[in-house]
Each structure stands twice: as C-alpha cells, then as structure tokens.
C-alpha cells in the first residue's frame, strides 16, 4: 500500500501574551509538539488520547484549517505546508472532514440536499441536474431516503445528521476523510449504526480515514493502526492487534486498563492512574508522562525519550519499554454461551427482517 499522508515533526504552539498595551510573550501553549505519522491508502489510522492531548489540533493541521508552527505535511507526495490558497483549494477536494457534533456542523437554513451539494458547488463540480442526481446517490449510500433532500437539519435525529455529514464529506469523492470524534455525541445503538456505515463505505470506496477518538473500544473496531497521543506528543504507534495485545508504553497500558468492560466479573481489577494531565503551557521536562507514570525513574525526568521502533511496525517513546513488568493479560471471559446464542439469534432475525 502506498502512503497517502505523511506527517513529520508537526507542531502548533500558541503564544501566551501578557500586558494590555505592549504585549509580550510570556510562554506558549504547546498544543501539538513534534508529531510524526503516516497513513496508507485505504487504511484507518486512529489518533487516540484524552482531552487536551492535541489530537483534534493535529487533524485540523493536516487539513491546514490552522497553520502549523513547524513541521511538514505531505499529501500524495506533495508538500502541503508550502501551498498557496489556490493550490490548497484543489487539494481540499481530496481531503474532507466529518465533525463530532452533528447538531453544530450543519447549516440550519440549508435543506439537506443543498448542504450535501454545497461542496460540489464550491469546487465547481457538475451542473444543477448532475448535482441533484449525485445527492440522491449519496443519500442512498448513507442509508437515507430520497425525500430527505428537501428537509431541514432540525427534522433529523443525531444519527441521521451524522449520516448527512458523511454524505456531504463524500460529495466531492475525497481520498482522505478526517473523522473528528464522529460517533462520540451519539447514543450507543446509533453509534454502532454509524460505525458500521463508515466501515462499509471504506470498503466500497477505498477511503482512507484519519480517525480521531477517545473511545478505545470504538477505535479497536474501526482502526487498522493506532497512534496514542499524550499532551501534544506521540507515545506509541502500532498495528491494532499488537497495540492491544502488547501495549509497550505505560500510558497506553493505563489507558487500556481504565476502560470499563461490560463484564462484571472483572470488576475492580485495575488501579487507576493517579493525578491529572498537566497543562500544555507547562509541559514537564524529560518524558512528559513522567509525572503520572508508575515506572518513572531519574532518567525520565531529564531526558526526552525518542520515538523508536521496538517491533516491526510498532514504535514507542519510552526509555524503559523493554523492561516494563509484564501485565497479566486482561481476564475476560467474553460473553456467556447463552448471551452469545441470543445475540446470534438477534442478528439472524435482524437480517431476515431487513
């Protein structure tokens, strides 16, 4: 698979100023602080981390919705960072975004049909008739009805709105779709519908997803590879299987163990990570995770760990990832036989009905 998106040493620092008349810079918020990753064609790379880790800022930098302070972004071999507005417009057709909040990201005054057609108008694709036909095709693609084109956003539920947002992003036939927490605002049963839809669309259209999320269970379902961020920097990158089976960074481990499992027999089996995420205005020296890391040593407080390859395709930024004590594998029995049987019946009945 060829590389579609290549990001290296990307940074975004916001200056912090003080004083009313003569402002001087007193510090910087290091929202994204030297992040590198690559995304292959047809692949889903998930950026995960807790709020304030810089994952959404990274997504916006990739689309150049905000300007980076340093680093480079290459899209399909072309350096995006130096492009002027005209050049960028051409590229934007090929990279689209789906936002988290489907209530805020649709214009309430546009009919759904107009909202979906808008990106085509902006990029001068087709004429009125062809765009109308395309809107119908897109509505069918995301599981909505033809007559929905004449309705307004307020007439739709959250899940349906997210489908509209997806249809709109796909209107210009992009290669890359950046999904910024696309299911976080939805109810669980609706989440599953949208996640299934996004996977189907990827298989049909060969899309590449940069998937931003904080819910690791959803990520495990969606992603091929996962990049874990903490406080503006990358902690670990790896294939989904390896990363979940053998997390090599203490932060990845803490994150994985903090997820509540739908299995009462595992109750209370983990000790939660202490403390809070430090402010991005005062990033700790050395490894930025050392203030909360249960394994931190002297070296972690002074020396920044470089990202290094520890196994094929798995990179980690930790001085001691080889010598971390083994964690006992999560003891989960999965579903009971009767629960699994009933779920299978449910699935079978659903297909018969649908």
């Amino acid at each position: 698979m060829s590389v579609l998106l290549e990001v290296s040493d990307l940074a975004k620092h916001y200056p912090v100023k003080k004083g009313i008349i003569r402002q001087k810079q007193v510090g910087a918020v290091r929202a994204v602080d030297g992040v590198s990753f690559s995304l292959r064609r047809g692949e889903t790379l998930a950026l995960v981390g807790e709020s304030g880790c810089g994952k959404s800022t990274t997504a916006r930098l990739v689309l150049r919705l905000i300007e980076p302070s340093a680093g480079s972004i290459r899209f399909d071999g072309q350096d995006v960072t130096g492009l002027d507005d005209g050049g960028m417009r051409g590229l934007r057709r090929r990279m689209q975004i789906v936002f988290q909040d489907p209530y805020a990201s649709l214009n309430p005054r546009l009919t759904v049909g107009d909202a979906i057609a808008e990106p085509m108008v902006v990029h001068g694709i087709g004429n009125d008739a062809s765009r109308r036909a395309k809107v119908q095709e897109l509505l069918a693609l995301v599981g909505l009805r033809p007559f929905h084109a004449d309705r307004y956003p307020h007439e739709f539920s959250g899940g349906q709105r997210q489908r509209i947002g997806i249809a709109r992003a796909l209107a210009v036939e992009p290669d890359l779709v950046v999904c910024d927490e696309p299911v976080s605002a939805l109810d669980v049963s609706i989440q599953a519908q949208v996640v299934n839809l996004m996977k189907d669309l990827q298989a049909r259209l060969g899309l590449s997803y940069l998937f931003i999320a904080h819910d690791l269970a959803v990520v495990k379902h969606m992603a091929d590879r996962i990049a874990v961020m903490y406080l503006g920097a990358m902690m670990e990158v790896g294939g989904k299987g390896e990363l979940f089976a053998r997390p090599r960074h203490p932060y990845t481990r803490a994150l994985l163990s903090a997820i509540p499992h739908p299995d009462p027999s595992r109750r209370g089996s983990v000790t939660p990570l202490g403390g809070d995420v430090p402010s991005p205005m005062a990033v700790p020296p050395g490894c930025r995770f050392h203030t909360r890391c249960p394994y931190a040593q002297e070296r972690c407080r002074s020396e920044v760990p470089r990202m290094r390859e520890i196994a094929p395709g798995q990179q980690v930024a930790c001085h001691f990832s080889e010598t971390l004590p083994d964690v006992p594998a999560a003891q989960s029995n999965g579903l009971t036989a009767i629960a699994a049987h009933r779920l299978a019946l449910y699935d079978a009945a659903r297909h018969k009905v649908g």
Partner: protein
Amino acid sequence: MQQELLRVEGLRTVFQTSSGLVRAVDGVDLSVARGRTLGIVGESGCGKSMLSLSIMRLVPQPGRTVDGKVLLEGRNLLDIPTGDMRQVRGGQIAMIFQEPMTSLNPVHTVGRQIVEAMKVHSPKDSAAALKEQAIAALKRVRIPSPERRFDEYPHQLSGGMRQRVMIAMALACRPRLLIADEPTTALDVTVQAQILDLLRELQAETGMSIILITHDLGVVAEMADDVAVMYAGKVVERTSARALFEDPQHPYTLGLLGSVPRLDEDRDRLLAIEGAVPPPFAFPDGCRFNPRCPFAIARCRTEMPPLRLVEDGHEVACHRAPIEKALAMESAA
C-alpha cells in the same frame, strides 16, 4: 434479602406539551437496597434522568408526577410538605450531575459553596467549624492540599477535581442515598476510573446506597449490584448486574450489548439496533420497542408486555423471553 432503603412504585411523570401528552416516566417500579448500587441504563430520551428528578421532586414545569409512590424507608416522599422535602434533599438523598461546571457557581470559591450547602442542614454551627468540616469533606474525596483548594474558584480546577468537589458537597450531610446522573460521562477514561474508584470507596466507608444513571454498560458492569434497563419511559428488564450480562433477556438489552464494541473479541460488524428511540409524544402501541425489535410478532404490536419473573430475581417485559424457547416452539409448530 437485603434491607430496602428506597422503593418506587408505579411512578408516572407526564408533560403536557403542544405536541401531546409526553409520558416521560410511565409506571416505573424500582427498589434500592441499603449499601448497594442500582444502575439505571438507557439511551437519551428513555426517561432515566426524569425518573431521578421525580424521586427528588424536582421535575421542571410543566411536568408533573401524577401517580405512584416514592418510599424512602417507608415514608412516601410525594406526600410530605415542601419544607420537609427540602430537608430530605441533600440530607437523606443527594445528587450529582454529568457536568460539574454547570452545577458549580463560577463566582464563588469552592469552599464557600460547600459551606453554604452544609449551613442549610446544620445552621447552628460556627463559621470556623463549618470551614473545618468542609476541608474534611474535600479530604474525604482525596483532593490534594484541601486547605488551598478551599479558597480556589471552580475554573481553577480540572474536570475530575470539580466532580470530586461535587461529590464532597453531596456527601457533606452524610446522605443515605446518592443519585449520580451520568457522573463520569464528561470525563476522560483515566479520570473516570478515578471517580468510579472513589465512589466505591466512599460507599464502603459510609454504607450509602447509590442510584447510578448511565448509558455505558461498561460503567454498569464496573459499579452496579442491580440493574434496571429503561426504554421509552418504562423499565424493560430488572435483575442483578451479573445476570444482566450473563443472561440478557430483553431484545433491547441484547441490542445494547451487541452495539458496544468489546475489547475481548473481534467482530467485523457491530450488532446495531435499527432505527431510533421514538419521540415521547408518539410512543407506539403495544411494546414500545416493537418497531425496532427483530423478534416482534403481531401480539407485540397490540399488547403491552408487563414485567414478569423469568428467573429468580430476574424480571423482563417481553412477551417472547426467553427468545430461544419462543423461536424453537415456533419452528416446531
């Protein structure tokens, strides 16, 4: 059988709106045992928050609780005078919400707000004594350097710290029941784990009961002893947390379980529930889940299934549970 602290019988809360009568809570029965946690699960619009507000008698206008009983140690809270109810709120029953920032006053220090809450219930204590108690309350929820935090404003605290402050305020008067409405939904997972841990420790210390309202089955598995699954204003399944996961009966419960991606198994597709929760002024006839239920038959469209016992301590409101038996009988016929 554990001793019962709270018993809700046939509770009904309605809203008269221009689109029709909204039956937000429609005949709910619940029981909370002393020192135990009852999880109430459901998606948005299922009535779980309105249920907790009905228990507290805080239903916003134009809503009204029109029927049922809320028995706290045998005393029906729906019958007592408003003044007595004010003593119950915060005194015997306390509540915490999803977004701590909107529940805290941004222009007052954290300490002042805790003291204010304490004053209502012990007006005779001196200012110094109240401050001391407030600092002790902050310490109890494991807030580091509580003396310093006492004088800070809510915006100076992180989301997790704010929720700790809310818990400190809620527990200031040693309530017997804590109602926690999505207490960790707005928090990051590592912070969520801290808060859940804290609630468990505090429960063990004080012996209080908890009603935990959540949409997250993982949180239920982690916290609850007993569970009630709600759909469209009604309880559709009621049992112990263990039985809910080991022996899920109601099709809606199955749909919810299938919708959550699990870390312990790989599945290509999630088992989504089709459609969406119906709007509360247009609940379908019969079983309210029937338009979304893959097992629905003619009877489900006309006859509302009551909660019935299928196993010891396991109640389900479904005509066809257990479904494998219903299907087997059908194919034999």
